[in-house]
């Protein structure tokens, strides 16, 4: 069991290295503009430009530049934003992380629960009206831009129906830390959670239904029936359990991607000061060091999350466990 884990971890390190090179190349080696001008932002003085050129080693060969950037990102962690007058980038990202985690965790709980319910109902009534209706709704969920759903949700809960009994409890946009006021934290996040979850409920519900329907074609379901098990037990312990393997591997990837920046649009629409919103603000002010840092940290998080998922996957499926 140890060797495959080590192999997966070395693979992970390789991918991290690859990503860091790709990011470096995108930000510093693409044709178009002087990289120091990109780092320093708009309207930078010649002195600042010279300082940047020196501290990032832009007068030196590429590999040195790469190492200098990586050192600033991961070792000294003193990358500074020029647009925001010397604000340290890394601490700002660390500070924003709990917000993003709160958002993604809650949404994940909702989407997993509802997707499983949806997939099971659809699979149990396959071909019937509930199945078709749920699959249609799922496809609608997949087809809606999440930021637009968020805007419509805001329109309903903050403005048009805010003064009805249905939504008067919804607090204004923004984020309250869990440690400060747990109930307000919860109330403020319900709508963002649901908004973010809609897409994934549709996606996961549809995938789970397909997997369940496929599982029901398997011989072992017939065996389970021949054993005299109840339909609910067959569904839960045999069909669902085997279908969950794909579900879990998908979940890990999507969860990682969301924490690592995919929740950006939701954070922007609901004004939640998470990592994604930081990236968004940096985008608006063309603050490249900031974007580079969030991109790098977030992608590393995603890569690590993927590796963890692969290891969990092996644990879930004994066949994979032995094949490695």
């Amino acid at each position, binding site marked *: 069991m140890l060797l495959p884990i080590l192999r997966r971890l070395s693979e992970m390190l390789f991918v991290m290295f690859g990503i860091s090179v790709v990011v470096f190349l995108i930000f510093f080696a693409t044709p178009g503009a002087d990289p120091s001008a990109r780092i320093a932002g708009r309207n930078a003085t010649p002195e600042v430009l010279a300082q940047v050129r020196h501290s990032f080693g832009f007068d030196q060969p590429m590999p040195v530049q790469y190492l200098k950037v990586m050192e600033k990102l991961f070792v000294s962690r003193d990358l500074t934003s020029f647009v925001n007058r010397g604000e340290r980038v890394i601490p700002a990202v660390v500070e924003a992380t709990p917000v993003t985690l709160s958002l993604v965790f809650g949404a994940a709980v909702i989407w997993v629960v509802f997707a499983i319910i949806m997939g099971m109902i659809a699979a149990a009534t396959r071909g019937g009206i509930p199945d078709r209706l749920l699959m249609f709704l799922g496809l609608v969920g997949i087809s809606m831009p999440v930021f637009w759903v968020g805007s419509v949700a805001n329109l309903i809960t903050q403005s048009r129906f805010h003064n009805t009994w249905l939504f008067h409890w919804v607090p204004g946009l923004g984020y309250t830390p869990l440690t400060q006021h747990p109930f307000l934290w919860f109330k403020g996040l319900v709508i963002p959670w649901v908004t973010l979850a809609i897409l994934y409920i549709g996606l996961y519900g549809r995938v789970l239904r397909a997997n369940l329907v496929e599982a029901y074609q398997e011989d072992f379901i017939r065996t389970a029936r021949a*054993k*005299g*098990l109840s339909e609910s037990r067959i569904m839960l312990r045999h069909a669902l*359990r*085997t279908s969950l393997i794909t579900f879990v591997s998908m979940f890990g990837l999507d969860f990682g991607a969301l924490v690592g920046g995919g929740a950006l649009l939701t954070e922007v629409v609901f004004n939640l000061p998470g990592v994604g919103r930081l990236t968004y603000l940096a985008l608006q002010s063309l603050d490249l060091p900031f974007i580079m840092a969030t991109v790098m940290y977030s992608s590393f998080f995603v890569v690590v999350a993927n590796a963890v998922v692969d290891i969990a996957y092996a644990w879930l499926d004994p066949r994979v466990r032995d094949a490695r």
Partner: protein
Amino acid sequence: MPADQIPNTAETLLDVQDLCVSFRSERGIIRILENVSFTVRAREILSIVGESGSGKSMTSLAVMRLITDPNAIITGSITYKGRDLLKLSPREMRDLRGREIAMIFQDPMTAMTPVYTIGWQIEEQLRAHQDLSRHAARARAVELLGEMGVPAPAKAATRYPHQLSGGLRQRAMIAMALSCNPSLLIADEPTTALDVTVQAQILELLQRLRTDFGSSVMLITHDMGVVATVSDRVMVMYSGIIAERGPKPDVLGQPTHPYTLGLLHSIPPMHGEKPHRLPSIPGSPPSPMGRPPGCPFQPRCEFRMDACATRPPLFRNGMQEASCWLADKGLPDWAHERAIRTTGEAA
């Protein structure tokens, strides 16, 4: 144990009468099984043989009421210990499955849920029908695996299906099927996916069941060799109907249906000169949609005659019955001779 040692008066365990299975489809009703009737007596092994598509597996699934397709139409009666299975509620049927009638399948690799250990799966069946603690169920599962000849049963119980060899998997499957002492075991091609040596061991195990467990066995197979080894009685199916049935020695020794004859001639002889090429029955079985009127075997039959345009009933000939117009008088000797010659030439 030769068949003649089993008393014919043994009580009837399963009595299937006029079983018809058909499916509604876009192109009309497809008839899969047509008026299939047979009985299984206590502690006997009934073999059902036929090519794929002959309806033998459908017969076993119908007995277990495992045909879940909502478009299936099932008529007739399946009487088990005096109760018509087709009239039971789903709940009563579920209670019967696994406890009274158990089933094993062709490929134990795909027939067992891949993510649970062998022991877990046997326990699950035990606890579905008996009030047992997990601990007691595990003990019984290990015991059963031991009885089925699985070496180191306690260790095998902790293994996943893919970690065992095909033979051990099938033994585990049989252990699971027998865990609640069923009176009837339906074995659907239990040896097809196995090596020849393992096949023999599994067949021997099946034969022991009637003495050790008092179970009857309904053995579904396409392999005449398997039929010859284990069965007491044989039922040959072709294209959804019964072609021939009767005690094994009669059917195999003196077949009265040309199809049985063809099947027997396609087995390599044990002794004597080897044929240059094994004879085979020309053509292939008709699809359920394209069944000819009258006898379904007639397009492939060497003895086709005018009478075949109407469907022959089952003609009784001593203990033996066959649905062939020739069987009325018993297949003449020249038929045997010609069958050997022509099937040889056709090959």
